[in-house]
């Protein structure tokens, strides 16, 4: 009997031993890489000039050195239709996390390529094409129970697969705002809408922040037809100095940008993937040899509309 008790005790001890096992990852590569996150943006007031904006990050390998030398430098090159148009040498890797901004003369259809090179890094390169302007949008709005009810529509091109981003902007002004005035973006609310979704993006595919809240959508569901959105945003017309005005910025954007933003959002919600119980969500990238996204944007705006009272 005593033997049986000993065996039983031994089995119980084994069964309740900590079930954790620690081990090393031997296969991880030690090389760092570049993450490029930028776009080249064309606006209606200067269609032959584009604003180039890029964040360039040097990302250490998980298995290698986490710190970069103060002397380490990166060279960024910009090509237009394979012709080198700009070189930015001596970008500090160790401490640089700023914005690289420039203006380049471009035409619709031009191919813009950027490369980032540094010793010890794989060369990173990405290409995008200057997009045509977006279609003209029509927008109207009215106040409804503390919310701004917005209606916006535009016609999609049937001959191409397009991607769009919308930004709903407001401004307070004592006189009619000028066209160049940007205003600030509105966050939409989908809480009480039939098009509501847990991700709070309503009828859109994704939303992201880029000096304003943008809502992106592929033209899958309305390819070649006129698309009308009816959305609401919390809005207090008395919260500013002057009369409230509203307008919509409609961007034609690269497919790559939308895919990238969707993948980044999904990657942030991948807890099971982190522990091997689900597929890992890979961030889409169009950067060869690196990570991130380089894309093209062409913006259009509706005119400023004065926000009227309740219907």
């Amino acid at each position, binding site marked *: 009997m005593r033997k049986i008790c000993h065996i039983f005790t031994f*089995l119980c001890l*084994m*069964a*309740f*031993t900590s*079930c*954790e*096992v*620690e*081990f*090393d*990852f*031997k*296969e*991880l*590569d030690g090389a*760092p*890489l570049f*993450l490029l996150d930028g776009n080249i943006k064309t606006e209606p007031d200067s269609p032959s000039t584009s604003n180039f904006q890029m964040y360039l*990050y040097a*990302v*250490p*390998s*998980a*298995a290698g050195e*986490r710190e970069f030398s103060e002397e380490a430098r990166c060279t960024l090159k910009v090509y237009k239709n394979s012709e080198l148009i700009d070189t930015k040498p001596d970008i500090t890797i160790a401490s640089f*996390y700023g914005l690289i901004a420039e203006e380049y003369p471009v035409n619709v259809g031009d191919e813009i390529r950027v490369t980032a090179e540094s010793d010890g890094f794989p060369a990173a390169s990405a290409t995008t094409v200057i997009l045509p302007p977006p279609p003209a949008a029509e927008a109207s709005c009215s106040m409804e129970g503390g919310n701004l009810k917005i209606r916006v529509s535009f016609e999609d091109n049937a001959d191409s697969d397009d991607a769009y981003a919308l930004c709903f902007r407001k401004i307070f002004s004592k006189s009619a705002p000028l066209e160049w005035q940007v205003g600030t973006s509105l966050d939409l609310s989908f*809480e*009480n809408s039939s098009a*509501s*979704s*847990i991700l709070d993006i309503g009828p859109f595919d994704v939303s992201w922040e880029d000096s304003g809240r943008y809502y992106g959508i592929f033209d899958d569901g309305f390819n070649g037809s006129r698309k009308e959105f009816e959305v609401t945003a919390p809005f207090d017309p008395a919260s500013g100095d002057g009369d409230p005005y509203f307008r919509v910025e409609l961007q034609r954007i690269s497919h790559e940008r939308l895919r990238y933003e969707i*993948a*980044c*959002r*999904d*990657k*942030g*919600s*991948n*807890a*099971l*993937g*982190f*522990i*091997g*119980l*689900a*597929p*890992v*969500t*890979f*961030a*889409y990238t169009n950067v060869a040899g690196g*990570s991130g996204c380089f894309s093209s944007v062409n913006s259009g705006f509706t005119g400023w509309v004065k926000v009227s009272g309740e219907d």
Partner: protein
Amino acid sequence: MNRVLRAVLGAFLYFFSITVCIASASQTALASAGVLQVEEKRDSLQATKPSVVEKQDSIVEAKISAGKYVEEATRSQTGHKRLEEVDFIYGNVVFSSPDLIKAIQNLPGVNSGTELMSGLYVHGGEGSDNLFLLDGVPMYQISHLGGLFSSFNTDVVEHLDFYKSGFPARYGGRMSSVVDVTTRNGDFNEYKGTFMIGLIDGRLQFEGPIVRGKTSFNVAVRRSWLDAVLVPVIALANRNNTEGETIGGTYAFYDINASVAHKFSDDNILSLKFYHGRDKLKLKLDTQQTSSVYGEGETKTVHDTTNLHTDVAWGNTLASLDWKYRIRDNLKMRTMLYYTGSSADVRYFWRNKEFDGVMTDNSVDETNYSRINDVALNADFSWLPHSTHDVRFGASYQFHIYRPSRQSLATSNGVQDEQSSSLHYLGNEFSLYAEDEMTFWERMSLNLGLRYAMYGVSGKVWNRVEPRAALSVECCNGVDFKVSYTEMNQFAHLISTTYLDIPTNCWLPSTSKIAPMHSRQVAGGIYCRLPHNFRLNVEGWYKTMDNILEYSGANSLFPPLDTWESSFNKGKGRSYGLETEFGWRSGKVALTAYYTLSWSQRKFDDIWTDWYSHRHDNRHKFTIMGNWKVSNVVDLYASWNYNSGGWMTVATHIYNPGEVFDRIYTKPNNVNLPDYHRLDLGANFRWSSKKGLKHIWNIGIYNAYCRKNVVFVAVNERDDKSLYGTGRAIFPIIPSFSYTLKF
């Protein structure tokens, strides 16, 4: 000298026809037109000696019991294994129940995954790429309790045929393997049964005649009582909990196999079969807390109540009417009308009520329903136009109804946000097939087959032609060489956002945007029956897979129904390797060893530009099993399983300028997990009473040396910034006990 044993008897299932070429045993049995002749020339290998149990030619009574391994070696198919009762009744006893799936997992070329993700990953395929047939009826959910118990009750199983390559043309609809389970009809002459009681489940099986010699029944019921075991455990846990938390949980499964068979004559049998299995899981966590909060110059008392409930129920129902009829002496028919259905209901409920003078009430109630129902009519013919030709042909029509749906209701202080999404597909699948097993020069057999499948859903029609060919050549005495080529298509996709075998996964059909999965496979090997009851088989394969799916998106237990066609990356896979089987048996001892060297890879252009390892790319797999019949009272068994670790994806680059970009993944499945191994031990003690009752006591130990096999892994960072993994094992050593009474 007669060297071919050709026995074509009215088979009980699938009009069983066997072509057995025995070089060394040199025996011949010819069966035709009600005549069975057995001529014995030499008996050099005891293990390969065929024997005729009953000399009758009917589809009921005649049985040929040739050496099992001879039979396997002389079939033209590669990659085929038949498991009979003796193969699964002893070993693989987890929580005291013999398990068919665990027996298959031991075989070479099959990766079993890890606990929680346990399944059959055959020649690089996924767990959902296997066709499971229970008496010819497809079964969608093949396990209970996350793969710990299979849905097949071994009390009624007669045998199973497992194909991992060289698929005969009569099988189709899945890409990687076929598991064809055949159950027994009830005894036509006497009543008998089995009763088993184990630690967490019990079984009862009873069979016998309804009309003696004409009609029989066979009923088997199985149920777990983990729910009863958990009641005192949970009560104890709640009694010690002083923080206002109440936990609750219950789990149970049951399944029923029932059949009635009627013999109009020995060549005309009608049977009705039924299976129903169900799992139910309920979990709840309720918290009630009262706290004091100081704010706005006063102290407020806050009452907080949170309820978190999860209810899950899932299972299968199968029913079939099966008619076997001999039309002419050389032509037999099997016609079957069947229904198979699978369902899974998952409800998640969360509610939080807070009162601090003002009541706040938020709740989320989500329910996911997943249904698939098939109705089908099959006709299968077996025709023997000549002694060297065994022709099978037939047709099948299946009507599929796919119906997953999801409902969500979020309430926030009386404001309700209701969402629902559902999919409804009607699929029509029609297939025609023909195969001919030809024998040449007594040493060679060739199986040529062709299968045509048409699948229509939502206006889209997919047409597929699947060639099948298998060649077997007897090189010398006891040594056979085989080679095969097969193509398979799969029109049903198991949609899952995780790797877990959970009921939120749902089946959906190929559509205009999702092409059918398709595999091509070449396999070949040498099969040797050596002197002194040794056998050695070596087989290799190369397999490609197209149009396979891999989820890419946010984690959610519920697959995205509205966008499922665009939420999965489309890619391809390949697998190749070499598998060996070595065996020896004597009168009392049987030893079997399997070794597999394999590669399994994937390529999804949207994820990675090159081939990468599949998560179950286990380079080496080794299994050794032994049974020792010590005496008529005691038999012992042991098995040791080893396989190289699987793969998982770990961030290759880490930085943290913002929340989103903190991890960069470059190559999928880039790190190797620790190896998996475990030892299972067991013993059976038998005793027969004077009244003819058989008593069997079984004790077993699963994972005898308590190996911590990793199921999931947390990625951590040391002080020196290096990464390491912390793997979690969930199944330590598990002792089991059961008592079985056969009456």
